[in-house]
């Protein structure tokens, strides 16, 4: 009997264990869900559509739905500092509101504006500080507060705030981010992050709210919600007293990069948006409802500026696009649209990339049946390194769960190509090169055996700026080293290059000189390396001999601190010093004799051509000109294991289109020829003012001939610069010792070879 009980007990235990194991097998339940969802896809989501705005708007300061359902906005236009428009059809068309032109005097700009539920407007305006004729962001002196009623009548509001309290800060304390509460009181934040509650008719301060840092604040019924770095605080605006914090909102708002909050149509309704989406919350509740997924819309970009809800419960959001122009999007609920698009692809990048994010947003809005998942390898939240992120990616790829499109910057591209992990997408590229719509020399730079596995969608050009006499003598590192030596012998005290640190010099020249150090079998050539260190030392000495040892040490500590604080590699930190777009005026003003680095925008051509016009001896040429190098910007590839190759190719094709190439933050010139030409159009007066800031040279926009000369140089580029973080990091370490005199060039070369020995032999 006992034996039977034992056996029975054993069998039950084994059966339980096996059953529990089966229950945790996620794969099969995911598949079941996937199959279910295909047959009975959930329906209903907010669709994003474009709404037109009045012509020539520069900025939108306030957007509000009034009690009667009209949508009103306060904006500034070209040469008109203050304009008001209203829409009776929920933002589809706009009509100018009369008698708004004289409210803000010419020459003044609006700082902030708010509209109450009746349509009354309160705004403050002033005159911007200027430097060298260019406007700065700070205002000169006090701002003027005015109230404009619904008939256009203007009244000054005597709002006076306590001083800013910072002894070194001479600026007058002013209100920004103006908003109206439901009870008609005006709210705003000052320079010390204090929120003021003001009687909108008299300008008297009713209450103040001080909570340290204020990322955003909102007004719902009688509550003021303040979003700080780690919590959402709540205050009663009738008494000015703090109420219980709203913990359920912390996850969505506290610590978010950017957010907007507005009251809804019902009493305690709150609507807010951040990069992750649009949400609804009822005060006092425990549930936050996501209405729209940020990844499926432009919310993902984080460039929203105003949010309003219309009378139908749909939403209006204004954004600033990549050209800093206002854009209006309408979010309407569609019962028929699938809750999530049926076609999905994943785009993977090691580091967050704003340009790619924007392109994904645009692509999704034009392809509503496609959803693009954006994955970042090194998010910075978990302390993972680039190497860890690549290993995690490799694990996913091997498991068949890898991304469809890869942003290849920082990844072992050669290894991926060798192991067959990247798919050939030359058919996508041929569509553009066949019609001469892309720079064939750039996009086919990585072509091997008629197959294309990786393509740069943007590029930069490495150049050397200096006097024509210097440019005639300098062709490569050797001749630059000789020029540096002769320069010193001639006794010229002007620094050769504007550098203060050995790594800064190494970063600037490494991409165009490193390829020469390698033998055909991939090993390092000791003689070439020693020679390179010798020349680099000469250039470094000629550029820093005017600095004392103490000054050099101070710079070294400053850069080390910045690199450690930013938790980045040296090449990532010094990347900011690579841009020599605005170095030509420095040479004209005698701060250095040469400038070496990269240019990635046509502003650089403006500087170069303007300086050449006024100082005919100063010009530019390609750096290490015999090799025709270009610096690949964002490089893309497609996974050979992608389950949605069609979708991936569609997205890749979009990245090369004129529309997508219109978006850029720092990646360089577009490879699309049409966009390349379009970007040569003269920019706005504000941009020209910005270009003239901080220089005594008069910067004008180049004429077409100057652009043609540059374009013909671009068409000769054919070799991507050498990119290898391991090699560059060991160069920085070795060259630092050589530059400071601790090691000779020969010893530094030995040092570097020892360090790279293992890496290259792997």
């Amino acid at each position, binding site marked *: 009997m006992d034996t039977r009980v*034992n056996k029975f007990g054993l*069998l039950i235990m084994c059966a339980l264990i096996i059953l529990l194991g089966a229950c945790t097998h996620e794969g099969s339940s995911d598949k079941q869900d996937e199959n279910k969802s295909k047959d009975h896809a959930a329906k209903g989501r907010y669709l994003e559509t474009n709404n037109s705005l009045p012509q020539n708007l520069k900025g939108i300061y306030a957007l509000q739905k009034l009690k009667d359902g009209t949508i009103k906005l306060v904006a500034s236009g070209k040469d008109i500092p203050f304009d008001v428009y209203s829409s009776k059809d929920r933002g589809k068309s706009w009509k100018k509101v009369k008698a708004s032109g004289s409210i803000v005097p010419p020459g003044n700009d609006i700082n902030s504006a708010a509209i109450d539920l009746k349509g009354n407007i309160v705004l403050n305006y002033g005159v911007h500080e200027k430097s060298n004729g260019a406007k700065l962001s700070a205002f000169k002196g006090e701002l003027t507060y005015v109230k404009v009623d619904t008939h256009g009548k203007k009244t000054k509001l005597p709002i006076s705030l306590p001083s800013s309290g910072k002894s070194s800060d001479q600026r007058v304390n002013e209100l920004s981010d103006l908003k109206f509460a439901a009870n008609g009181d005006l709210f705003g934040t000052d320079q010390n992050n204090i929120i003021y509650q003001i009687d909108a008719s008299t300008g008297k301060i009713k209450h103040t709210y001080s909570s340290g840092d204020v990322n955003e604040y909102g007004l719902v019924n009688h509550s003021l919600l303040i979003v700080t770095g780690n919590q959402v605080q709540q205050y009663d605006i009738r008494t000015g007293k703090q109420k219980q914090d709203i913990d359920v909102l912390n996850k969505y708002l506290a610590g978010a990069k950017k957010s907007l909050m507005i009251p809804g149509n019902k009493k305690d309704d709150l609507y807010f948006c951040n990069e992750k989406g649009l949400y609804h919350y009822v005060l006092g509740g425990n549930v936050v409802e996501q209405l729209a997924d940020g990844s499926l819309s432009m919310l993902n970009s984080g460039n929203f500026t105003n949010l309003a809800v219309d009378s139908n419960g749909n939403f209006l959001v204004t954004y600033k696009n990549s050209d800093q122009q206002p854009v209006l999007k309408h979010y309407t609920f569609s019962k028929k649209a699938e809750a999530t698009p049926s076609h999905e692809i994943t785009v993977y990048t090691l580091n967050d990339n704003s340009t790619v994010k924007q392109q994904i947003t645009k692509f999704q809005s034009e392809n509503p049946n496609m959803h693009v998942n954006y994955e970042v390898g090194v998010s910075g939240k978990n302390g993972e390194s680039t*190497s860890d992120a690549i290993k995690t990616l490799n694990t996913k790829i091997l498991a068949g769960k890898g991304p469809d499109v890869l942003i290849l910057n920082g990844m*072992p591209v050669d*290894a991926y190509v*060798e192991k067959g992990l990247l798919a050939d997408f030359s058919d996508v590229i041929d569509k553009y090169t066949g019609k001469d719509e892309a720079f064939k020399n750039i996009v086919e730079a990585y072509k091997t055996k008629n197959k294309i596995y990786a393509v740069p969608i943007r590029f930069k050009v490495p150049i050397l700026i200096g006097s024509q006499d210097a440019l005639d003598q300098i062709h490569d590192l050797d001749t630059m080293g000789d020029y540096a030596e002769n320069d010193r012998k001639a006794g010229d005290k002007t620094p050769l290059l504007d550098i203060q640190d050995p790594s800064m010099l190494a970063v600037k020249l490494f991409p165009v000189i490193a390829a020469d150090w390698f033998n055909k079998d991939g090993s390092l050539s000791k003689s070439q390396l020693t020679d390179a260190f010798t020349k680099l030392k000469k250039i470094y000495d000629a550029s820093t001999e005017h600095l004392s040892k103490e000054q050099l040490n101070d710079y070294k500590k400053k850069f080390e601190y910045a690199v450690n604080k930013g938790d980045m590699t040296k090449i990532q930190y010094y990347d900011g010093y690579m841009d020599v777009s605005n170095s030509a005026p420095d040479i004209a003003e005698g701060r250095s004799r040469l400038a070496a680095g990269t240019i990635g925008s046509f502003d650089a051509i403006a500087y170069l051509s303007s300086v050449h016009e006024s100082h005919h001896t100063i010009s530019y040429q390609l750096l290490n000109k015999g090799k025709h190098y270009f610096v690949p910007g964002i490089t893309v590839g497609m996974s050979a294991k992608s389950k949605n190759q069609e979708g991936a190719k569609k997205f890749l094709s979009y990245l090369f289109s004129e529309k997508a190439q219109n978006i850029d933050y720092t990646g360089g010139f577009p490879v699309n020829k049409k966009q390349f030409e379009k970007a040569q159009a003269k920019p706005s007066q504000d941009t020209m003012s910005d270009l003239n800031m901080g220089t005594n040279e008069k910067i004008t926009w180049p004429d077409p001939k100057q652009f043609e000369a540059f374009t013909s140089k671009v068409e000769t580029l054919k070799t991507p610069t050498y990119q290898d973080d391991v090699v560059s990091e060991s160069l920085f370490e070795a060259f630092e010792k050589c530059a400071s005199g601790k090691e000779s060039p020969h010893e530094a070369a030995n040092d570097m070879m*020892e360090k790279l020995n*293992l890496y290259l032999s792997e």
Partner: protein
Amino acid sequence: MKFIDKQQSKNLLFILPSLLGVCIFVLIPSVDVIRRSFVDAKTHHFAGLQNFVTIFHNHAFLVAAGNTLKFIAVCIPTLMIISLAIALLLTSGIKGGPFFKSAYLFPMAIPVASIALMWRVTFEDHGLLNGILSSLHLGTHDWMHSGFAFWIVVGSYVWKYIGYNVVLWMAGLLAIPKSYYEAAWVDGAGKLKCFFYITLPNMKSMVFIVTILAVLNSFKSFREVYMVAGNYPNQSIYMLQHIFNNWYRELSLDKLSAAAVVFAIVILIFVMLLQKFWASESLKGDL
């Protein structure tokens, strides 16, 4: 004729869930690694022994293997001798024995990241050690980027696992019947003779266990080295785990698998030799 008897079938049922887990997470992946060691990563075709030939001609692999063997050869005897000496002291009845036992275990409780941070603070260019040397006008040194790095890793390993081994040794020492020592004292044997003729012979099986565990723990020292020095540390501390890590990043799974198979064979031979020479009769019976 029964293949297994009733008792054995009961035993099998008890170990079945654990056995399934080991099969799924250890045995099957190991078989896959062996399979991959004979396959070319680029063409996915059978490559015979080519991968093994490749790794033995790979300079980085030879350096890593050499360093790993050197590390084991230096660390294991050092750790065992020092920990045995401490265990003997603690079992001899000195004052504060339990306190010292806990104190020696303390390093094991310190997280890897904290140890890595300690290394950086102590051995970096502007670290504590260079600061002290500089104040004494003795000149500074780049500790982590020179041959000293190896001894720093050895020291860190010994410091971390000494307590663990002390506890193991103490368990073995306390299991030796006191009557053996009493009989020896009566016969006029001194402490040294007792150690060599009573203690050591009775500790053979413990030596086997301690050695195996020490070798396994030696592979964990990679974590601190990786956190401080990254993928490519000084050549003296470039171990097999580094090259495995880097090959995985480059997806050179053929070379990685071949190296893993070679390494597993070496460890297996080592364990079998140890078992032959050090495991006691009773332990052999159990195994």
